[in-house]
């Protein structure tokens, strides 16, 4: 082994990974350490120290050029291990500065707390399950609380319009609505194309190509247009609401608002949720329209149904009920997305970690709830016969 002397006065720079090393040699009295016993040389020397076993030992440290806290700890650890076997380890010819360091480390050795026994029995599993159920119940309660708060503040705003922040509302409408138009339009267009294409392949087998218009119109107007728009908006907007409100919460800006007698619900939640309520139906309409255009285009190319025929078939055969059924859901989805986004923002704690986890869970919850509520609507309309 190459010995690299690295005294504390030496200012040459060795490669941090390899250059420092320590050697241990057997001597008549016991053993002698030489070199540098540091955190860098420790991986090399530690196996040899581990082999010292079952004997009283005198360790000669006179040739030791450098020692750091990690090295001192390794020596103390060796002494403790030998002590447990009933043997003594003594250090001889220690340089005074090394001695002081070893003493300092010995003095501040960590005192581990007794580890708690992790008992996981059946009762604990039940307790865990119960806790989760209660948490879920509390969470649903919180969401309703948030909805109630929004409605109450909405009433306040209606009674005292001067407190309403119109600028904020317009800003959020722009962020949530106008900027989402391209993606929503493109999505609707592509869905229309896919429906027409798949529908034409199937319906052609029966010679019922013309019904592709009904297929596209009903599925897009009734379900897909608004549902897919809501899912995109949930991904786009719920996350941005949570991130914006959450970062304000994290930096105590919300607390600052409260101390300045500004109501966070009035200033933050009302414009955001109201903006969603306004723009989500419009976005749904954009998606439905581009969906119909995409469907008409594909029907023309694939089945030779001219746009004129498409429109007349659409106007004659499709009942307005489908449109109403579709758009009655939009405000409900808007409320779900807005309330979940704002609520998750308020749950953010003091660190960036919780901001990230709340943002992603807000998106997941919002999308999930939108799909669940859409299914409930379908069942409801089916029972009502609409």
């Amino acid at each position, binding site marked *: 082994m190459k010995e690299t002397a690295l005294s*504390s006065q030496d200012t040459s720079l060795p490669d*941090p*990974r390899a250059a420092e090393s320590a050697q241990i040699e057997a001597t008549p009295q016991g053993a002698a350490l030489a070199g540098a016993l540091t*955190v860098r040389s420790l*991986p090399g020397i530690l196996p040899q120290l581990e082999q010292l076993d079952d004997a009283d030992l005198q360790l000669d440290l006179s040739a030791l050029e450098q020692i750091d*806290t*990690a090295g001192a700890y390794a020596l103390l*650890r060796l002494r403790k291990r030998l002590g447990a076997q009933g043997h003594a380890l003594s250090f001889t010819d220690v340089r005074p500065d090394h001695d002081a360091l070893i003493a300092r480390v010995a003095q501040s050795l960590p005192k581990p707390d007794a580890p708690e026994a992790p008992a996981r029995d059946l009762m604990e599993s039940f307790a865990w399950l119960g806790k989760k159920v209660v948490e879920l119940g509390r969470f649903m309660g919180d969401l309703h609380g948030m909805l109630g708060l929004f409605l109450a503040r909405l009433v306040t705003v209606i009674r005292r319009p001067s407190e309403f922040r119109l600028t904020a509302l317009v800003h959020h409408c722009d962020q949530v609505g106008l900027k989402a138009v391209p993606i929503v339009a493109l999505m609707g267009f592509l869905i229309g194309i896919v429906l027409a294409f798949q529908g034409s392949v199937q319906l052609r087998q029966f010679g019922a190509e013309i019904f592709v218009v009904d297929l596209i119109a009903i599925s897009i107007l009734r379900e897909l247009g608004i549902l897919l728009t809501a899912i995109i908006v949930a991904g786009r907007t719920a996350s941005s609401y949570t991130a914006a409100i959450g970062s304000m919460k994290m930096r105590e800006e919300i607390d600052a608002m409260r101390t300045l007698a500004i109501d966070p619900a009035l200033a933050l939640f009302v414009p955001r949720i109201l903006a969603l309520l306004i723009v989500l139906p419009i976005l749904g309409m954009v998606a439905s329209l581009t969906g119909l255009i995409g469907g008409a285009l594909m029907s023309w190319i694939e089945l030779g149904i001219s746009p004129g025929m498409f429109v007349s078939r659409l106007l004659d055969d499709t009942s307005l009920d489908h449109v109403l059924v579709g758009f009655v859901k939009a405000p409900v989805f808007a409320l779900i997305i807005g309330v979940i986004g704002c609520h998750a923002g308020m749950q953010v704690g003091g*660190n960036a970690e919780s901001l990230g986890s709340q943002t992603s869970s807000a998106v997941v919850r919002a999308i999930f709830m939108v799909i669940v509520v859409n299914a409930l609507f379908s069942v409801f309309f089916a029972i009502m016969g609409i």
Partner: protein
Amino acid sequence: MAEPVIELRGIVNQFGSHRVHDNLDLDVHRGEVLGVVGGSGTGKSVLLRTIAGLRPPQGGSIRIFGQDALNCPESTRRAIDMRMGVMFQDGALFSSLTVRENVEVPLRNLGGLAAGMRRELADLKIAMSGLPYFAGDKYPSELSGGMRKRAGLARALALDPEIVFLDEPTAGLDPIGASAFDELIKALSDTLGLTVFLVTHDLDTLHATCDRIAVLAEKRVMYTGTMQDMLHIEHPWVHEYFHGPRARAAIETLERNA
């Protein structure tokens, strides 16, 4: 006097057209605790970041451990960095890791140590920074400001660096916590032979820990010297700083305790 471990010559730091440092010279000697003081905006933290390699200066030279730290291969700079530790103002702990895992990060980066030993060494550093054992299992967000600072110090000390940079170590601590931190710095620098570069506003810390004080003013290091030297400097800002009501209170406290 011990040889200098950090030599700054003609450092220029500039933000746009605003010059923070102009032709700044400073030596830091081995084993000393150097306190850097200066009014707000005199670039104390910028100086710290410049030496720690976080911000290349627009001009001048930096020699650390006798090596040119600016125009050197990346491996040399890395080797220098591994011999220095930085404690940031609020600890700058990784928020997704527990305190123990935070301290283990540099050890893991070094490579070669078994997981068990790494954990024990991390526990040792946590204990040496004056934190209770259970703090190792906590996440940074669960700790108080003072404990976060100690955890930041534990991480800075993980590889037994020769130089530690402390950015406002006592800012935001209560007086008891602050003086405990002062004692910790003093004790660590005495027993571990640490060189400490300390940026502070706290006069008590200057009194209690610093061997030498460097005053930043007029874009350079105007004066260096011991606390006693500082008391006899005529420069209006320095005089105001070391003779103001807070300074007198700090001196009186020190004399009472002495």
